[in-house]
């Protein structure tokens, strides 16, 4: 594969199993570059598992993952990650700025402490998510939306080329949702590729250029306009899709 033209993320026959139960089966996918990509599917479809597998956080049962044609280890610097905010204990003794600076750790190397340049970058990232006034706030005093924005700022501080975000819109307030989407659009303007695990079908067409429809297997992937169709959604959600997103109601009525 020629590296120059290799996709930001490409996976081939990727399979993952938990306790011998398959969660993802034989997924083959190559992503476009510089787009916001929504990962859509029902609960338990393996959306989070998919990005964790790509990030190398889970052992693969089979298949390969390449970032720009190279194995993950060689390209870690290119990748930014926003985990689900419930995955950490927010009563940890530290403040907001310190958490955002953790985004710089990957670039620092062993033993080195973050310095003033890292602090400045972290502050700039906090400003982008509208949290600059909270830099010295103890993290246990943050609301859910603020926690999410802190995690987003930490990922921005990684200064990555490809971002993976695990349910950044889950349970956040309207102001945070707006702040996040603004940041996403800015990332796209800088030609970054952003994967977002997403569960709100109403906003998919507004937010994402491409989608990956997932339900243990890859149901469909491609530009939102062509891929996010009633037929594909029915395939993804089976009988479980009770309410179709707004835009379909209109087209079906018309």
């Amino acid at each position, binding site marked *: 594969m020629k590296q120059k033209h290799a996709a930001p993320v490409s996976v081939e026959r990727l399979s993952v199993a938990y306790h011998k139960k398959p969660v993802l089966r034989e997924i083959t996918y190559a992503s476009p570059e510089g787009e916001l990509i929504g990962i859509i599917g029902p609960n338990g479809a393996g959306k989070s598992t998919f990005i964790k597998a790509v990030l190398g956080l889970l052992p693969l049962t089979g298949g390969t993952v390449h970032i720009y044609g190279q194995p993950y280890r060689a390209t870690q610097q290119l990748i930014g990650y926003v985990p689900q905010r419930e995955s*950490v204990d927010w009563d940890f*003794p530290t403040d907001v700025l*310190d958490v955002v600076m953790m985004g710089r750790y990957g670039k620092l190397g062993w033993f080195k402490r973050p310095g003033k340049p890292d602090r400045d970058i972290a502050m700039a990232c906090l400003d982008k998510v*509208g949290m600059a006034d909270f830099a010295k706030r103890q993290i246990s005093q943050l609301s859910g939306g603020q926690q999410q924005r802190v995690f987003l700022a930490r990922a921005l501080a990684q200064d990555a080329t490809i971002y993976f975000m695990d349910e950044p819109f889950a349970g956040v307030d309207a*102001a945070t949702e*707006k702040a996040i989407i603004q940041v996403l659009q800015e990332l796209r303007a800088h030609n970054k590729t952003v994967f977002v695990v997403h569960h709100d079908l109403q906003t998919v067409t507004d937010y994402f250029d491409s989608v990956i429809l997932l339900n243990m297997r890859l149901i469909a992937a491609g530009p939102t306009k062509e891929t996010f169709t009633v037929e594909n959604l029915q395939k993804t959600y089976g009988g479980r899709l009770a309410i179709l997103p707004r835009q379909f109601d209109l087209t079906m009525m018309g």
Partner: protein
Amino acid sequence: MFEPNALWVVAGTSVLGLTSGIIGSFAFLRKRGLMGDVLSHAALPGICLAFMVTGTKNMFAFLIGALLTGLVASFAINFITAHSRIKEDTALGLTLSVFFGLGIVLLTQIQHSPNGNQSGLDKFLFGQAAAIIQSDLLWLGIISLLLITLCALFFKELKLLSFDPAFAKSIGFPLRPLEFLFMLLLVTTVVIGLQAAGVILMAALLITPAAAARYWTERLGQMVVIAACFGGLSGLLGSWISTFGTQLSTGPIIVLSSTALFFLSMLCAPRRGLIAKGWRAARLKTKLAEEAALTALYAWMERNQQPAIPESELPAILLEAKLSPKQLDNLVRKGWLCRQDGELTFSETGWKEAYNTTLFQRLMEVWAMYETSIDSPVPLQEVGRKEEFPAQLRRTLLGLLHRHQHAPRYLPDHLAPSEQGGFL
């Protein structure tokens, strides 16, 4: 008055407390408190095996032995939780007792052997700080220094490992080697602590200073330093009390000292301590009652467009707002409310406070109605006090309030609210 021997003991236990406070902080934050207990119990068979192989009491051999059995124990825990339905707490309990049992069996075996009586290994059960001699202290000092240096060098890595291991892995931190390093630190601390504190009490020395330190600070670096001080202080106190005052065993007194420090922290720490928390809760309660009284009285005046309330109306107002007369007395005492000639009225400050409080509550109500269509720098749910209200929303919300005819509608003639509404 200082026997040199006693001095070694005091110095030794202090250094030990200090080190275990530091290492214990990370164990505490990683919620691996019980792991320290498992490792110290698992160290016993390792030490016995090392003694059986080498035939001498050699700190280095003990370390290797304890590390080996510690590794086997933690592997066993991981194996049990990964390959069965048994949860971690049960796995920890099982492993701890099995290894301790094995250790006791080996210990009895050694006692019956020819050079067993001189081994003094049984002292490892409860520890015997009084046996610390000058050469032990040297060892203790060197190893402690090494452990503390490693902690300082890997501070950032250990911090991220404790806070968010998945993120640490995603940015390329080698998780397994780091986990191993951390276990190495923990086992080494346990081994140097066994002689003084014993298998059974060592875990307390790791966890208690850290748990106490957590009350005093919101920064990891400070917490580690405070835990070190608490640990060192308990070591000092414990050995001091047992050596000079009484003939009590040192290990348990150290544990009791650090527990005393823990209780002190739990009660007296600013912000996190129980007393501070209780005080804050009481203040909040008073403030809410005050606001409830102000708005209830104001509502009556607004409804009746009168600057004073006859005493005869009071019982009904109090009943409706579920207030006690005491809360009115409180307002009188503050000089916000005047009681004369059978009537109640606000002082000037009282009027302003009542008006502002009512206005704030109604602004919040109208904000809630229009939440989705109003851009705000702070979400509605996070504004609890007047001071937190975002200034740039004032004009919009005040306009809405007037449109809904819900703005406060009464003030005596000599007072007028500012253009932004209220008196700010």
